[in-house]
């Protein structure tokens, strides 16, 4: 039986990344303004960028959700009114919120739809019922909730349910870690997390006379739910969300492309029995990531879900070397270079739909036609014509 597929919700850390996510197939994006979110170090959106982002996404049929999911203090709430009215005016599709004061402020001053952030750790049916009474129309359930539990929450609380399908994991119950607050003076629940859970620790077990040196015992493997997409669909989950507003353009493109292709495939065929799954998995491995795990999606996350390693790039990682910026009369493709590449390298162009386009670089030229052996970042170069490439396609290459 073919079922409705969930919305694919992708991160948009900047206006450029919003466009990337939408172009590569996301049905919705979430993003932050300059304040009130949890990613202070992200570029985030100015009001003008927000307006442009909403226009861009809506024109392509995608929805825009704005995160206001810090645990806001009184003075933050004082400043919130003007911003949420602006959001209402530019017709964003929902706000993602963590605390009750913020929910009340938004309900009083706007008609915005309110989604409860995962930060509020909504873990069970009763909790969802309570938040629904507070005016929330969708809950982004805690990352500890399994797909089966999420299905129960949806059914019993009669509320839309959104779940993380991919990305980095907070090791704590979201909203229940204040390590940064008390060790570095940075409020992790207002965007200042110092990622202390990724540090290397030495542990002593005094009562047992044991010591364990050099561990990353609090670091979680990354989530990947690609293999259990069918379970998400069967459970009727309304939206599957990719983490990573701070991550690269290549990440934004890869996630939107892979997951949208997979969901499209299901829509067409009604199943995932496909060698495509291996191909998609391969693609997910090409962006920088920690080892993937399914965390709590099916069973409770156990010791195997701890990423007991220092953060590092894997050999499989690809890097974005540029962006297609134009085609010249079916002769050459123009690329805006982000990372240098050499003549005779092979680059890969990620089309918005369909298989990756590979291109050997017999030549690299500057716009004025001068041949060069190595490109430089922040320049425009011409490479041999890539049939099927479109403006804004991401160009990547395996790291050397």
């Amino acid at each position: 039986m073919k079922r409705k597929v969930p919305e694919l919700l992708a991160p948009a850390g900047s206006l450029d990344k919003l466009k990337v996510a939408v172009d590569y197939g996301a049905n919705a994006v979430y993003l932050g303004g300059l304040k009130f979110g949890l990613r202070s170090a992200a570029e985030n959106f100015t009001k003008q960028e927000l307006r442009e982002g909403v226009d861009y996404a809506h024109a392509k049929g995608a929805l825009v959700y704005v995160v206001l999911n810090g645990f806001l203090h009184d003075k933050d709430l004082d400043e919130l009114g003007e911003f949420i009215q602006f959001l209402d005016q530019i017709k964003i599709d929902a706000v993602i919120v963590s605390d009750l004061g913020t929910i009340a402020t938004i309900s009083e001053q706007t008609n915005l739809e309110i989604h409860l952030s995962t930060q509020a750790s909504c873990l069970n049916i009763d909790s969802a019922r309570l938040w629904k009474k507070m005016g929330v129309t969708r809950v982004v359930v805690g990352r500890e909730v399994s797909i089966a539990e999420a299905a129960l929450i949806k059914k019993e609380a009669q509320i839309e349910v959104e779940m993380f399908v991919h990305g980095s994991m907070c090791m704590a119950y979201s909203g229940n870690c204040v390590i940064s607050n008390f060790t570095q003076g940075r409020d992790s629940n207002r965007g200042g997390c110092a990622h202390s859970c990724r540090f290397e620790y030495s542990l002593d077990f005094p009562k047992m006379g044991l010591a364990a040196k050099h561990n990353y015992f609090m670091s979680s493997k990354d989530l990947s739910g690609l293999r259990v997409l069918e379970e998400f669909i069967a459970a009727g989950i309304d939206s599957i969300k990719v983490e990573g507003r701070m991550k690269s353009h290549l990440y934004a493109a890869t996630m939107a492309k892979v997951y949208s292709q997979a969901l499209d495939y299901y829509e067409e065929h009604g199943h995932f029995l496909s060698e495509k799954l291996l191909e998609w998995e391969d693609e997910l491995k090409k962006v920088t990531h920690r080892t993937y795990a399914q965390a709590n999606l099916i069973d409770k996350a156990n010791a195997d879900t701890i990423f007991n390693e220092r953060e590092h790039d894997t050999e499989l990682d690809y890097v974005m070397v540029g962006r297609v910026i134009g085609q010249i009369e079916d002769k050459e493709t123009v690329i805006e270079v982000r990372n240098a590449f050499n003549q005779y390298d092979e680059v890969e162009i990620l089309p918005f739909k369909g298989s990756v386009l590979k291109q050997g670089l017999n030549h690299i030229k500057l716009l004025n036609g001068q041949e060069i052996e190595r490109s430089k970042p922040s320049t425009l170069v011409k490479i041999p014509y890539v049939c099927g490439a479109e403006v804004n396609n991401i160009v990547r290459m395996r790291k050397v």
Partner: protein
Amino acid sequence: MKFISYATNKHDLSLLKECSYSEVILSFEDLNRLIKTSYDDFIELCQMAKTFQMRVILEWDVLATENDFAPKKSLFDSIPAELYDAIRVQDPGVLEYVLGTTDKPIQFIAETGNHNLKGLKVWEEYIGHRLERLVLSIELNKDKIKEYTCALKTPTELLVAGRVLLFYSPRKLLSPLALSEAKAEYGGSFLEAVGSSEESPHKGFPLVENQHGTFMFHIKDLFLLDRYEQLEQTGLDWLRIDLRDRQDLSFLKTLHEFLAKPSFHSDDLKEAYGKEVIRGYFQTNKSDVLFKKLKNYRVQRKDEAYIGEVVEIAKPEYMALELKSHLHLKKDSQLKIINPNGKEFFCKVHFLKDLAFDDLPKTHKGQLVLMNYMGGVWPKSQVYLDS
């Protein structure tokens, strides 16, 4: 101001009685994050507290996903209602459940994610007459606490001495590191460790793993009792002391003796506490100041005259602009360009060409155009029409 504390055994309870505590927080291992007391012992403690005429506050503070929540509900339902006087909850799901299934007064733990008055007032309104206390966050400073206690109808409580919980994960993070034999010898269900990291300014974080997951605490205890007068001025009704990590509660007796004196030196009280302490955010909370510096101060687009961004500089021939707005660019347009350092440059468009170096009479959004080079401008500079 009154004091409240936990009792995990009969000795603790007797000591609280001796110190004239009118309320005690009791719980058992299945409903409580850190209490090791079994269900049967908990029942006995409740009965004993009743004979001491103490109000029993049952604390249910574990977080649980749906499948784990159901058995906890059954356990809770099995507790004879006459054995406790009020229930203290944190998870909104637990709150919703106890609102619907009991008529006991509720003490709501608003310690996590409740840092504005507006939210607290909504909780007050929602829980209504059943709400007998709000437990406030230790991230609020004394001025905020004072403001809140004045504005709220409900009595309030604050942790004033005890461990600061920094991290609560449902995953078991210590047992994979402890050898299984040692674990078996120790019991295996309640592991304790101390963690240090070169990357953290603090060393020696106490860690606990039990059936609910893993907990990390600050290396120092929160201690505000040496600021007793300031606490009085905040208007708090209840002060909580949490010494569950200690062998005994004898400090409570010492505190009692100190407070009975006409005056005492606050440093002596601090010394009597016997652990290194912090005051947390009681004086001030500036935890959003530091990380504002982390913000990426890229040049942010500001006004309606925005045209686009410089993507390449080919000195001295041209610079390439990506046009990102509906505004048109034409020969002789006056431009203001702001480079990534924020420096402004003004120039006129002398020529406009496409990628094949053909002249462009007019432009459109999304197009890439080449125009005359301007010194000081580099890629990522933002371009505006300067009318």
